[in-house]
């Protein structure tokens, strides 16, 4: 039995990637996920530019996780220059960050993943066959985008975030109206959990190393320490010990590995590492989805996203309550305590742990930059999953195999244009 699957530009993912699988005489001959995105060179673009521009430039790495890149960039500059943002800044950043996690996860589970289960090629036919599902998704997505917009002006690309604080502040009435909408969204969240709990998730188990941020007092998205599910914690400044970037001739991405051959980042990694800190309603959602750590079915990364949707709606309500209680006061951004320095920022953005590392010179210009993107960190793990999956499905017709493999790629929610380093290998 010989089969070849060659999916040129996998659809319903962000960016350009190809699946190449070849089975000859029932033996797996070739199994690759090629990233064919054009090289972006963001780190080099930052060189010689004022650090104040860095978050504006790097948010343009990705339209989906623009707020995540901007927040990580600001944290890198703030650490380099010895800036401690105010508690109000921390809360406002968390609120817009939750907005982005929600926006990205809702887009992924409803518009990119759900069509596979409902046997259609996109969300568009669902508008007539399942209008209530599509309207719910659009309603939830609008709420998430508005949540970002109240704080930063817009989700893609955030405006009011700056080194040391904000340049615009939400009004009380905006926060009150947001709170009402968040509470009203609980019905949509419940319906979302119910829908995704009813889907026939493909069976697939492969234990791997899960890496995320972690914090002692909350489910970590911004700052904290690096945690491995294999038992190790490291300060984010030691990120290079974890990521160990390397290049391989057959593929196009810089790969990463830590204590095993590959590791996974993203919602499932956060779920596995920080489950205890989820909101009780999010834990209930996990129970409804049949998920309890450690979950080793990669397809359930989308399930972990549904759990995080529940968590972020609930946590956003708590954040808005704190902001309303204290009142939001316009304040000047905190000034640097030194002129130059080196700093690492890290956030767990929708697709996983992200690092920005900057060196800032005496003149305030960036003299060095390194960004390590979640999707890069996942590609080696995706290929390892594919190598286990293919022998399990090789008796299926080619179309069925192709769909299973595409669904596996989509489960990672890859954000390929994000992958700053990732580039096409020009084969000789």
């Amino acid at each position, binding site marked *: 039995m010989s089969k070849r699957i060659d999916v040129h*530009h996998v*659809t*319903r*993912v*962000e*960016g*350009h990637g190809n699946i190449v699988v070849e089975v000859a005489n029932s033996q797996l001959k070739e199994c690759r996920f090629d990233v064919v995105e*054009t*090289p*972006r*060179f963001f*780190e*080099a*673009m930052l*060189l*010689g*530019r*004022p650090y104040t*521009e860095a978050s*504006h*430039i790097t948010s*343009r*790495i*990705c*339209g*989906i996780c*623009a707020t995540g890149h901007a927040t990580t960039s600001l944290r890198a500059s703030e650490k380099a220059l010895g800036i401690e943002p105010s508690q109000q800044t921390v809360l406002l950043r968390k609120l817009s960050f939750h907005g982005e996690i929600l926006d990205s996860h809702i*887009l992924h589970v409803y*518009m*990119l993943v759900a*069509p596979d289960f409902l046997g259609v*090629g*996109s*969300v*568009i036919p669902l*508008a007539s066959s399942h209008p209530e599902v599509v309207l719910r998704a*659009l309603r939830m*997505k*609008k709420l998430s*985008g508005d949540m970002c917009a109240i704080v*930063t*002006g*817009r989700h*893609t*690309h955030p*405006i*009011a975030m*700056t080194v040391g604080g*904000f*340049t*615009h502040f939400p009004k009380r009435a905006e926060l009150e109206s947001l709170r009402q909408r968040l509470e009203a969204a609980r019905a949509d969240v419940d319906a979302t959990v119910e829908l995704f709990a009813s889907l026939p998730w493909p069976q697939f188990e492969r234990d791997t190393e899960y890496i995320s941020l972690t914090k002692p007092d909350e489910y970590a998205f911004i700052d904290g320490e690096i945690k491995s599910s294999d038992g190790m914690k490291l300060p984010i400044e030691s990120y290079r010990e974890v990521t160990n970037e390397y*290049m391989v001739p057959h593929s196009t991405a810089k790969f990463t590995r830590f204590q095993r051959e590959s590791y996974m980042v993203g919602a499932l990694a956060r779920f596995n590492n920080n489950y205890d800190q989820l909101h009780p309603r999010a834990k209930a959602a996990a129970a409804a989805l049949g998920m309890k750590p450690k979950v080793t079915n990669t397809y359930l990364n989308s399930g972990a996203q549904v759990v995080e949707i529940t968590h972020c709606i609930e946590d956003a309500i708590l954040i808005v309550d704190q902001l309303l209680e204290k009142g939001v006061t316009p304040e000047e951004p905190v000034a640097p305590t030194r002129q130059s320095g080196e700093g690492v920022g890290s956030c767990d953005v929708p697709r996983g742990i992200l690092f920005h590392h900057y060196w800032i010179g005496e003149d305030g210009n960036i003299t060095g930059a390194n960004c390590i993107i979640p999707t890069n960190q996942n590609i080696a793990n995706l290929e390892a999953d594919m190598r286990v999956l293919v022998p399990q499905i090789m008796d299926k017709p080619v179309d069925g195999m192709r769909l299973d493999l595409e669904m596996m790629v989509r489960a990672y929610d890859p954000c390929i*244009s*994000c992958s*700053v*380093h990732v*580039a*096409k*290998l*020009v084969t000789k």
Partner: protein
Amino acid sequence: MSQNHKPKIAFFDFTSCEGCQLTVVDSLQDHPELLEVVDIVQFREAMTEKGEDYLVAFVEGSCTRQSDEERLKQIRQQAAIVVALGTCAHLGGVNALKSLHPLQDVRQYVYGEKADWYETYDARPIDAVIPVDFAIPGCPIDRTEFINSVKALLLGKKPPIPDYPLCVECKLKENACLFTLNKVCLGPVTRAGCGAICPTYGQSCEACRGFITDPNDSSMRNVLAEHGMSVEEITSIYTMFTAYQVREKLMQAEKATGG
């Protein structure tokens, strides 16, 4: 036209963050009726179906390698109307920042000794490769302007893109001028249409929509200098999204003076 007489439209992406296509998806939140008047035949980021017969092509992203030129030419051959969607396609955008450094340095900085594995050249707007009929500016595009542009195209008209400076919209919003708040701004030379969203949220306009047809550049640079910006800082803010245009202008000036 489709059998149902709806015009067929397609979306394509080159080097970009795909944020403009996401803005298109977001604009459907408020305007789902758009799907009733057009047939989207290709939109890789959102759908698997792929049709090669389309009337209007919306292209996001810059061209940053020779091998992408062929794909752009195919799109041009098929589409009656090609629209550059957002700053990367329209102006080159942030992608062109890398052109401010020698290309080989940029490649080595990111990819080290493996730099030659990766094909790249100076980032350029798509009209540097193929003729473009219209552009919807902005990084990212503005939802309302996108919807209004599609409406205009469906009626056989030009998209209504303003050619006056951002200050007009900022004044209409009754924003305090950033120059009076000890900040700087490129609003006086930048094309309006975004509702002056950055100054409204307390940040400088960085000219992501490009310059108006006849900007008073020298006055703008003088004003920035009067507000304490060094030549390097002025060059920096002037090139964030328009490095390609600034570089082209310099090269033309050099040619004119025989330099």
